């Protein structure tokens, strides 16, 4: 007995929206980064569930690539946050206001 596809999609949508919620409400750059990771993983759940649903492996392989890209993105993101901290003594995304939004 297996779980119907709807529940996987609902789970991934819930994760996606939790990530979005974090981005909209949190001000710490690291929390922001984690929220983006949650959103990327939501996409992975979708890809893998749909790969099983369609019976081909395209989604599974793409999910592997997404993970690698997420790691690469975090590496660059942490670099920027490091430089941010050295310049502003803070990782709050609302602190840098040299230019107005």
């Amino acid at each position, binding site marked *: 007995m297996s779980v119907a596809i709807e529940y996987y*999609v609902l789970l*991934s949508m819930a994760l*996606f929206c939790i*990530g979005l919620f974090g*981005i909209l409400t949190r001000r710490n*750059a690291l929390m*922001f*980064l984690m929220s*983006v990771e949650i*959103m*990327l993983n*939501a*996409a*992975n759940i*979708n*890809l893998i*569930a*749909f790969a099983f*649903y*369609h019976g*081909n492996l*395209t*989604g599974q392989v*793409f999910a592997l*690539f*997404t993970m690698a*890209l997420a790691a*690469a*993105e975090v590496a*660059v*993101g942490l*670099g*920027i*946050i490091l*430089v*941010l901290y*050295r*310049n*502003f003594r803070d990782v709050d*995304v609302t602190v*840098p*206001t*040299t*230019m107005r*939004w």
Partner: protein
Amino acid sequence: MAVFELPEWTALAPALILVATALLLFVFDSINPRTSNRSLLAGTSAIGSLTALGVAVWFMLAGVGTPSVDGGRGVVELFGGQFIVDQMALFFMVVVAVVTALVAVASYDYMEDHAYQAEYYSLVMLAATGMATMAAANSLVTIFIALELASLPSYALVSILKNNRGSVEAGLKYFLIGALSSAIFVYGVSLVYGATGHLQLDAIAENLEGAGEYGGLLGLGILMMIGGFAFKTASVPFHFWAPEAYEGAPAPISAFLSSASKAAGFVIAFRVFTTAFPIEATTAVIGIDWSLAFVILAIVTMTLGNFAAATQDNVKRMLAYSSIGHAGYALIGLAGLSADGGQLVMGAAMMHLLVYGFMNTGAFLFVALAEYWGVGRTFEDYNGLATQAPVACFALGIFMFSLAGIPPLGGFFSKYFLFVGAIEAGMLVVAAALVVNSALSLYYYARLVKAVWIEDPVADRGTLSQPTGLYAAIVFAAVLTVVALPVFGPIADAALDAAAVVIG
């Protein structure tokens, strides 16, 4: 043209040359990590991108990517359809290679005294590789990875002035919006995969009919993918990073992002929406014509960009908002696809992106020159520069009037084609918005020319040096903007043919 036949994979040569240049720069860097031999590094990058440019132009002339019925060598599909080299791919590789060459030459002076010379140039070349592969990517997988390859080095390049608060802030904002939009994009991809079961663009189009019951998922996925394109092209609703990132970044990088990166964003949008989501089939599934979304986005983007640009005092920020406005013009190319004149509108958008690549890069490089001199950032600070640097200021005049679309210059013709195309496609509102916005843009472009040529300087600046690299790049960009005029016929033909291949 070619005496002997090259193997098929060489069709990707422009992108391969760019990545080879980046790896060569890595080698230089590892042999001498603290090298300050700027001529070697900048020269290697410039030669690499010019070679890529030459190869791309040669391929276009030799008929690579032209369908065999038109006497060409046929569209080249590589890696089982993961990459496709057609005329549109080559056209945009040309745009990317030209802008990269200009940026590499200009950075020779601008990045003087910077601690990370080799890293800087290798990041530029890697980003250029990403943009060139975006032009050829034919599957949502390669599109997404190429998009990241273009984005990741760009984040670092924007914040490469690590002790400069403006640069770091710009990098942070660019990264945050970029990471968010790529998460949204990949979620959109996953939904499209769920609806069709495929990621290759042709396979998606073939499976659209069977996706009837998943209309909602597909519509949501397409909407989210539009978000990803909007970020890369700096259009509404993900446009607000652009003024910050362009203002804080080193000016050559602003030029690179606002020209090459934008063009690359448009090429994937063009390819995805023409190949994977043909209008009739997609409308049948999701119930709405997606070109409507682009009609709205085009009008909102160009209006917002131009009105915001008109109120700026800071020159770099004005150019950033004007770049948003130009993204709105190019979006007409997607908005007009539903009608019969689709080929004309999309070809016009491609012409506009090419000409825009010259004139906008030139304008940002002038800002780079002004920053190199240290004259300041506002319109007043630029007052009377023409008496001290007539050549550069003459070039600036060309860029500004071309951006505004004054008749004898290249920018006029591409806008004219966009206008005619919009009329022919029956989008009178869009055509009207284009005219109104162009008229408005003349106001703030002319304001900069007036400040430079007519106003008297507010303060004495002393003598201004003439950095060779920056001057060469600016003059070259000006020449290209003017030369685009006599050769506009062939450019237009190439763009229209390329559009016809993709749509047909």
